[in-house]
């Protein structure tokens, strides 16, 4: 009998939303306790700041340039490498419950397995694996999927439609009549992507994901090794948690986030010091990516609207913390808790009002790139609690899970098992983290490559719609934690900048070509 693995991911969660990371809006005692008894990473970064590429990195242990999911809407091939296939082949029972998103949601022809399973009342499909053998889709015995709303053909949608159809209309409608991300407003302040959702808490997708996880875990045989990826769709927008829970965090009591500069002129001065697409989006002149509402102009965001969004986001985080607590109690009751490793993280961050912006896009700053990451090793492994400040990445999760299972990391994995403390990180050469952005959507192109190292984050731009390829960003994460002063063109930092760029170019994996086809916006 080996160690079991519970991988908990959320979607679009900022580092500073957890109490253990200094967050002040949400109470997260369960996750804070995991951190206190495990390893808390202070500089964990995604290799992409949008869902599909980032989730593909978790599964494959590869950077987007290698696994080929270069933007949302590009599917991860069914026979891509998968850590879950490795665990399955080693005898693990395997499940993903909640948001998967390795394949696009907009799929009217039913091309993708993720969208076919629920209508067929199935929980996996037979498929080709990376090694050429056949097995369950991507290695998962059981996939029971959900996303941010009951739209689409996933299991949660069908469960809600068949069991509680009266609750469908309470969710924020994610897409508008043109199938763009909706800019509709709601709540007390007419804030974008906010709705008062009268749904019972027990029917909301956070509790559903926990319930289905507990059911799957409870069906495991005593002594069976298992891997469960419990993947919450929240706190990704829309911000429409159950109305019954809104009293947890009153928006009127919220202090504005530190990254939100309330004075518009000062805020715009900060943005003006960054590459042009920042200001173009802020003013509504250019929406470069599908992930933000096409018809929403960030410059219109008001302080009270941000307070309400922040509060609702905090409620969603608290509900996740409660749900994690219920699952941990179930594991305790199963009698195997000592042998369970728990990893808690997210796929990318949320702008959350920093620089007056919301949602996400080609903006490589801490709001999107500094992630909560906690590894609570199985108590039976006797690994001491620690805080790691060295940069690590989601690319390191697959080799970490290999190591937990007693498997050698595969040569296609590009990361390394997470360090257990900073000495371990230093001894094993952890030094830098890389993050990529590529998008090409209806004639608008953006390309970024970023390195985080030695307390600095440096981004270079490729030629695109708003850039000629000479632009860049350089921030001192220690002395400028809000990344408000762009040092890229500061002559006194030229040597440091050039060294980071040289390291970035040497370390960045080459982009797999030809680029895979973009088949949907998301």
């Amino acid at each position, binding site marked *: 009998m080996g160690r079991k693995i519970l991988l908990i991911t959320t979607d679009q969660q900022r580092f500073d939303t957890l109490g253990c990371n200094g967050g002040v809006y949400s109470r997260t005692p369960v996750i804070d306790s995991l951190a206190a008894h495990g390893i808390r990473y202070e500089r964990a970064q995604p290799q992409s700041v949008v869902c599909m590429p980032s989730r593909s990195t978790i599964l494959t242990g590869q950077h987007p340039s290698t696994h080929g999911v270069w933007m949302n809407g590009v599917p991860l091939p069914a026979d891509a490498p998968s850590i879950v296939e490795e665990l399955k082949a080693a005898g693990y029972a395997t499940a993903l419950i909640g948001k998967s998103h390795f394949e696009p949601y907009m799929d*009217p022809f039913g091309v993708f397995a993720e969208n076919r399973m629920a209508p067929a009342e199935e929980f996996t499909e037979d498929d080709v694996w990376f090694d050429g053998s056949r097995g369950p889709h991507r290695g998962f015995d059981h996939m029971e999927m959900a996303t941010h709303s009951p739209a689409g053909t996933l299991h949660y949608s069908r469960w809600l439609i068949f069991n509680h159809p009266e609750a469908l209309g309470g969710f924020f409608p994610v897409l508008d009549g*043109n199938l*763009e991300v909706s800019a509709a407003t709601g709540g007390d302040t007419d804030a974008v992507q906010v709705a008062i959702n009268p749904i019972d808490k027990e029917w909301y997708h956070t509790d559903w994901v926990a319930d289905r996880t507990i059911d799957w875990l409870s069906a495991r045989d005593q002594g069976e090794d298992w891997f469960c990826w419990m993947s919450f769709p929240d706190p990704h927008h829309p911000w429409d948690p159950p109305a019954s829970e809104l009293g947890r965090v009153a928006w009127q009591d919220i202090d504005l986030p530190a990254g939100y500069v309330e004075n518009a002129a000062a805020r715009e001065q900060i943005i003006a010091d960054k590459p042009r697409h920042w200001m173009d989006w802020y003013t509504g002149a250019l929406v470069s990516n599908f992930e933000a509402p096409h018809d929403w102009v960030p410059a219109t965001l008001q302080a009270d609207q941000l307070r309400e969004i922040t509060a609702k986001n905090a409620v969603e985080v608290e509900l996740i913390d409660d749900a994690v607590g219920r699952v941990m109690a179930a594991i305790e009751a199963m009698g195997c808790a000592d042998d369970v490793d728990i990893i808690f993280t997210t796929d990318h961050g949320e702008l959350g009002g920093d620089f007056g912006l919301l949602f996400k896009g080609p903006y490589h700053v801490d709001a999107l790139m500094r992630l909560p990451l906690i590894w609570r090793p199985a108590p039976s492994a006797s690994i001491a609690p620690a805080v790691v400040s060295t940069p690590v990445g989601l690319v390191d999760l697959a080799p970490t899970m290999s190591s937990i299972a007693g498997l050698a990391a595969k040569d296609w994995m590009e990361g390394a098992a997470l360090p257990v403390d900073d000495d371990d990180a230093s001894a094993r050469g952890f030094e830098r983290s890389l993050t990529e952005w590529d998008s090409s959507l209806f004639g608008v192109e953006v390309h970024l490559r970023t390195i985080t190292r030695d307390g600095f984050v440096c981004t270079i731009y490729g030629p695109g719609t708003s850039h000629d390829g000479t632009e860049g960003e350089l921030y001192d994460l220690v002395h400028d934690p809000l990344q408000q002063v762009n040092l890229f063109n500061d002559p006194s930092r030229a040597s440091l900048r050039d060294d980071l760029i040289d390291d970035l170019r040497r370390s960045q994996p080459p982009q797999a070509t030809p680029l895979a086809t973009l088949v*949907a916006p998301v």
Partner: protein
Amino acid sequence: MLGAVRYSSEIARPADDVWAMVGEPARIGDWFPDFASATVEGTTRTIVTKSGMTFDEELLIVDPIMRRLQYRLDLPIISFHRGTIDVIELGSDRSLVVYATECDPRIMALVIGAATKRALDAVTAILEEENHG
């Protein structure tokens, strides 16, 4: 807002051979992998997809001289659509097939365009396999 995508494929077959397949409206079920069947009545082509959906298309141009087929998809969520297939002779035994999709809402251009890319890959494989067979 209108969106446009365009895919193309070079096929190692004469343009007339390629046109014989892609220019015959009723044969689309033979090479479009997402479609199970197609029937044509007048200028209306009725498609049945493999996922069970049925919809009509209006044939706008079927021009064997220019080797252009153009059609309009009729679905409630689409306010405008135009699909255009051009077969261009590159030599006595090579052709270029260009498949363009214009659509409102623009998002559907991506989704429909991706299906046309799969179809181009499929028709290329079918025709080149016939060549080798």
